[in-house]
């Protein structure tokens, strides 16, 4: 319970700090953010395949941003 409270406080603080940032990257400065290697969506299909394999071979969970399941090979 104490661990959960610490995690909640830590995550809450991180979220507040992250969302209250006053630095806004202007649209004209976003050319590098638009590169495929900077776009998380570029590897979405590959991540799905990795997630599928990991869910069948590892006890860990998450980290690919989508729900797994449906394999039946575990």
């Amino acid at each position: 319970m104490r661990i959960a409270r610490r995690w909640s406080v830590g995550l809450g603080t991180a979220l507040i700090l992250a969302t209250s940032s006053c630095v806004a990257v202007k649209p004209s400065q976003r050319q590098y953010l638009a590169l495929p290697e900077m776009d998380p969506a570029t590897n979405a299909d590959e991540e799905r395949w990795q997630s599928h394999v990991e869910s069948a071979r590892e006890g860990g969970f998450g980290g690919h941003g989508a729900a797994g399941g449906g394999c039946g090979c575990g």
Partner: protein
Amino acid sequence: MRLRLVRSRLRRRGGARTTRFGWGLLLWFVVLGLHGGIAHAENRLTVRGNYYREASTRVLAPELRFTVDAPDERFMLGGGYLLDVVSSASIATGTADATGGDNVFTELRHETSGFVASRLGPWQLNAGTRYSTETDYIGRNVHAGFGRDFLQRTLNLHLTYAYNFDRVYRIFGGEGRRLPWCGGNYGRSCDRRDGGTNLLQTHYVGLSYAHAVHPTVLLLASLEYAWSGGPQDNPYRGMLIPAAEQESHPLRRHRFALWVGPRWHIRKARVTLEPRYRFSTDSWDVHAHVVEAHVHWRVHNHVVLRFRYRFYTQTKAFFFDEGYNYDYDEREFCTKSTPTGCASADPKLAAFVSHTPGFQLTYELDGLAKRTRMAWLERGWIEATYNFVYQTNRFGPARALGSLAFSLAF
């Protein structure tokens, strides 16, 4: 007469529902029309061939995916089909039961999926479904989510909910029968009067965060939680356990994961660094850490080489015994307070570590598209990925996974 009245009422109700649906659809298009100035459309078709190999199992998984903007990002449609061709000679995967002997067997799994998504100003909405079927498992998923941009579209928060409702079966090869599998404690009878069910449900909630904090730095993070209820043990693997002859895992599982993965583009070197870290924990006491690094190197205007290294470690589940020496009592359900009801031969519940080096080569076809009659290749790409896993559990010391993909924009 009474029947006619009922039918008439039903027709009226159906008519009212149709009218409401029509008004809803009209309202949707009006809302879409009010949000002008959206970026141009990009439709995309991707064909991918996935490959996985370990000591006793080979998987080939071709897949096809498409997304269509209709007419632009205010309304997007997508779908896909995946075929899993699994060839296995492992007793642990049910070979003996399925084939009636120690033979190699090949199994097919078909998966279809579809989604709709919309971006309206700073808001994003999405919903979708997935259906998967194989001889002894039916997987179904519905999911929906919404997100919002902040700080001039430099920060995005997205919430996703998913519900899986799967059906688990066991094949008796020698007997040629398929019976529901309700979990080891219920045994072969799977008596529903005692609460036995072969329905495996999962509720999933994920919150993701993406923030451009600098023209070359993107912060990404996610929090995920999942609750599963239903049979979560393997119907076949129990024959490896002398005292139990069946696996018996807890019927409930809570899982939690925290993931962070910033990206930093170094302009002069044309390199993007992507370190990742994930911590996950669950009510079965499986605590896992993943430390991963991706280095994307743009070696040419249209060629990107990616190097990857992943380190994975986990603790064992509270009920797992490496030697499969269980003091098993089939009258008990497997819980933390009654561990004698537990038995498992699942290697992914053991403590182990793995190391995964890998690389990926992506060739963007924009260069070719400048040639005569090749304009259709613009924004297309070809990608080859290969990873090799060294690990310390019973799945074997080595396994390989890779894919070849071809994508076209239209």
